[in-house]
């Protein structure tokens, strides 16, 4: 693989000047998928959300490839229809070129409102890649809690108050839910570990059938970190094992990165304004849950 400096010079399907917020990691996720899809003809489907709204304000577009937005909860079904059209037209000799299909949705559009549509697409076996850019809340509408929001996070619908300390539930394990669809490829990635990310993106695109990638995409507004720190947030999430990097190929779980020394979750939590209200006891509870999840993952990956 080329080095990062060389990769940045490539002609990517999301242009710069895309109008996403400074410090938002979602466009980094998209551009890394573009690097993974190098030399491919790509059609992108986009669920309603920050990425869609910011990048396509008519009459402008930041997309150099063909791109379709339909609604919030139906990126899975929409890309299914595009892929079905491709298969049909290709089979009939009505089109000649080869195409790959990538859908992007935020965690709200993927974990919550779009889960049925995504599940259907995965179950039917369309040859697509679905990438969730997970920033852990409904950021586009102003930081409301989602099924992906971590416990204790202060959001506008799980505000940390005198009685309730932020979100009271643990997050949904969507990647495992996708694995349960017996798809040929599923992975978790973080842009801080770009080589790992692009390698997995390539595998997802190359695989015959549906692939799912859950990409951590910190949001400076929702997480409350300095805009320069987005990639650092990813690194902290990986190094604390809050966001482990792994892949599941045909049901085979494989850890793709193991921190040399597991950092305490406090390093991750204390770097973000959304966790600022947490007491030492809460941090301890969070640590214990991360430890349990990490041990379970190690077992699944044959590392324990």
């Amino acid at each position, binding site marked *: 693989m080329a080095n990062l400096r060389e990769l940045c010079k490539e002609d990517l399907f999301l242009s710069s000047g895309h109008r996403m917020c400074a410090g938002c990691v979602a466009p980094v996720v998209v551009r890394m998928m573009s690097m993974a899809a190098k030399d491919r*003809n790509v*059609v992108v*489907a986009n669920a309603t959300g920050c990425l*869609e*709204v910011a990048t*396509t*304000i*008519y*009459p402008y*577009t930041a*997309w*150099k*490839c*063909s*791109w*379709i*937005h*339909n*609604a919030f*909860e*139906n990126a*899975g*079904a*929409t*890309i*299914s*229809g*595009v*892929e*079905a*059209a*491709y*298969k*049909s*037209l290709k*089979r*009939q000799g*009505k*089109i000649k*070129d080869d*195409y790959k299909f990538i859908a992007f949705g935020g965690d709200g559009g993927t974990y919550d409102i779009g889960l*049925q*549509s995504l*599940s*259907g697409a995965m*179950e*039917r076996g369309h040859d697509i890649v679905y990438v969730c850019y997970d920033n852990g809340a409904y950021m586009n509408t102003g930081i409301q809690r989602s099924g992906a929001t971590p416990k204790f996070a202060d959001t506008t619908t799980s505000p940390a108050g005198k009685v309730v300390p932020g979100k009271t539930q643990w997050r949904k394990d969507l990647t495992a839910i996708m694995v349960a669809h017996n798809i040929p490829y599923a992975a978790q990635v973080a842009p801080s570990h770009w080589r790992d990310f692009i390698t997995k993106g390539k595998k997802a695109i190359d695989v015959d059938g549906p692939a799912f990638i859950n990409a951590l995409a910190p949001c400076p507004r929702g997480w409350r970190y300095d805009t320069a720190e987005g990639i650092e947030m990813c690194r902290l999430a990986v190094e604390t094992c809050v966001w482990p990097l792994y892949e599941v190929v045909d049901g085979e779980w494989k850890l793709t990165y193991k921190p040399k020394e597991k950092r305490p979750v406090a390093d991750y939590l204390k770097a973000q304004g959304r966790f600022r209200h947490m007491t030492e006891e809460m941090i301890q509870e969070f640590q214990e849950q991360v430890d349990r999840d990490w041990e379970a993952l190690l077992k699944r990956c044959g590392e324990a």
Partner: protein
Amino acid sequence: MVQEKVAITGNEAVALAMKQINPDVVAAYPITPQTEIVQIFSTYVSNGLVDTEFVTVESEHSAMSASVGAASAGARAMTATSANGLALMWEVVYIAASNRLPIVMPVVNRALSGPINIHCDHSDAMGARDSGWIQLWSENTQEAYDNMIQAVRIAEHPEVQLPVMVCLDGFIISHAMENAQVLPDEVVKEFVGEYVPQKTILDKDNPVTAGPVAFTDSYFEFKRAQSEAMIQAKPYILDVAKEYAKLTGREYGLFEAYKLEDAEIGIVVLGSTAGTAKNVVDKLRAQGVKAGLLKLRVFRPFPAEELSAALGHLKALAVMDRADSFNAFSGPVYAEVAAAMYDSGAQTKLINYIYGLGGRDVGLEDVETVYNHLARIAESGKVDQRLNYVGVRE
């Protein structure tokens, strides 16, 4: 043209039309009474009789979403639904029209919940009347078949580019066997022609951003253009009908006027009830009553001027609605017919009858009740009650 006379149900006729149209993509989900259409169509797929990629989606919302995806990718795309299925796909029904995607969708009319009910009324398609879809309504199996084939040409017409619903009454048409004339496969193939999309997202050399955000400075222009397409659609619908008549001998207009020319009283009705009502008209005519009927085929675009021109001479007119608007005023078809009549300056006395909800049977005597009411109004020149219900226990 050698046409084959077959005994066929409405659902079978629609499925047959779909096979002959041979769409590139069908994305559909089962719902009573539409289910047979997708079942029959899936046998065409599994036996290699169509080139279609059949997407067995997990809901109607996804059926319409996948249809939008497929049509945006340059495919001739179809789905089919009924009632709650149409309601579930609501959001995307609007998007399909706004994106100007020529999707064709048979709607096997069924009552919307609640209470849940599987039988015929028009509350499903009437609810979608402002979604931007062209609506063609069918009286019987023959019309359902003919409307399906014409719908493709109307939707894909370069000057129209709007999706089309082909409405047929659940069970009454969908499950009843009737004689119908069907065309040979190759004739339908030639009539619908090969679909050439105006633009597609499957063109690497000309990338398209489909479905962008349109804010205060552009949304209204998009909507205005969509409105203009509907306003301009009527002559193209009639052109397609003329061409189809040459092929089949079966003539279609925006509506069918039955013994209306010299009539003094008349009704406006959609769907299978028109057949029942024609019998009543014949009976009344035999008794010397100048009764007539107008069966609306094209509800969207609404043929206001043509309707009022055909109805304006009547002394009294009843609009029969197989759906209620719950607006404490009238059913949906009445409101629009009344507006058209008012605009034309017609002096016709108007009443509204809501009938047949949830599949309540509509007999000759029910339609006679309406005509008897009209005869009293024609005589007195006075409307005693605008909103009426027939066939319901009060």
